[in-house]
């Protein structure tokens, strides 16, 4: 199993990682323009309003693109997953045979422990 590095967390994204430790995936929503964004910021990248709030994601989405790199034990699958909330997030696909994965396939979030840090959200086929 590939060693997952612990995320280096900035203060403004700390709630995301605390929620990840509890098995919840948060996205950031702007109260001013109504848009959801990722990665989460204090300031909305669409309208620059600072009135942004955390919202719990359903943790489900579809594979936008993916690629497997490395051989045997060291192989891992990088992916972009489009969440039901409309944002596309970088992640890994786990607990699956990448050869069977298709773009557009439904996936759900799973949380992977890291070395001495917060859990990291990854996705697996539904």
């Amino acid at each position, binding site marked *: 199993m590939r060693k997952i590095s612990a*995320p*280096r967390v*900035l203060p403004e994204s700390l709630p995301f990682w605390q929620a990840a430790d509890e098995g919840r995936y948060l996205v950031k929503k702007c109260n001013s323009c109504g848009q959801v964004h*990722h*990665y989460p910021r204090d300031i909305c*990248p669409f309208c620059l309003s600072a009135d942004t709030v955390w919202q719990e994601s359903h943790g489900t989405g579809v594979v936008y693109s993916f690629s497997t790199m490395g051989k045997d034990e060291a192989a891992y699958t990088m*992916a*972009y997953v489009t969440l039901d909330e409309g*944002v*596309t997030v970088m992640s890994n696909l786990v607990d699956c045979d990448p050869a069977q994965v298709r773009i557009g396939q439904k996936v759900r979030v799973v949380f992977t422990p890291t070395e001495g840090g917060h859990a990291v959200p990854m996705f697996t086929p539904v």
Partner: protein
Amino acid sequence: MSLNGTACIVGAYEHPTRKADDLSVVRLHADVAKGALEDAGLSKNDIDGYFCAGDAPGLGTTTMAEYLGLKLRHVDSTECGGSAPILHVAHAAAAIAAGRCNVALITLAGRPRAQMAAAQAAAKDGKGGRAPLALKPPDPDAPELAFELPYGPATQNLYALVAKRHMYEFGTTSEQLAWIKVAASHHAQHNPLAMLRDVVTVQDVVNSPMVSDPLHRLDCCVMSDGGGALIVARPEIARELSRKNGRPLVMVRGTGEAPKHGMGGQIDLTYSAAAFSGPRAFAEAGVTPADIQYASLYDSFTITVLMQLEDLGFCKKGEGGKFVMDGNLISGVGKLPFNTDGGGLCNNHPANRGGVTKVIEAVRQLRGEAHPAVQVPNCTWALASGIGGALASRHTAGTLIMERL
């Protein structure tokens, strides 16, 4: 203000080394600076503007000015990865037009291959060591870091994500991508300095080991040391040099630059930032893709070339795969000769950055100084395009259109 006609490229030089075991990064920068000055017929004291990016050591322009003993009145350290020198040409033209300098030097150089070999040797001795990066090591203050680094982003898989999506959206195939490498290899066979000089076939490419699917080993550029330099000058100075050396003028006609990023999560991998920089450059130059006789296209991977062909308007979106087939990028064979030095795919990719060599080969073509086997007859309009950073996450594109006069 338009930059059309404000500056000429009067000097271009590519370092001959591909593995610099005994040359420092600063020495490589200095070597290419000397080479470009000699090529231009200028001396060190003529330089009053200096441009370099993150590959330069220490404080960049300051460190290089000290090493070379330059007296400068304009410096620019615009850093955007491998496309930086293409932006530097535009910024030099702007600085010249604004009266900030008359003769601008641009350098790019590095030794990732020698560093990698040293790191591997050290690892064997149990002393550790790590692979060198094109950009600086991950910055803990970068806001995206926590949301990317745990997933193992590498240059290869970030470009593979784009290739996989392109195949899904448009039916592009590995065989079509392979044609890009095939064309580069046809050109590289004539370049004695190229790292990979053997002509390869589509089958060779698709049968090479998978690196990050769908990209094979031969879809990737080489890793090399070396570098290159350019000298950009006021047109009056360029005309005087041209009278002395009998070479044609290489005039800056169109420039464009643009970043593309994660867009708050509205990711769309079907286009690159060249979709923004390209139209700006063509509008400034007053020409269309049909007027371009030679194109230097950033070729970190085959997919990088395909994306630029579409985004710059050489073919419609989604039709890049068809466009590159059957040798359409091979000089003397196809409609759009590209990377006639062999490019990053076969020749070199110094400092993991291909921007300067893209401009250098375009200058050779416009001067009629490319290898005779790949020289485009009567080459009057050429384009150089760069993608710095990663196609799937964040990058900056630079487009430069030049005319021979």
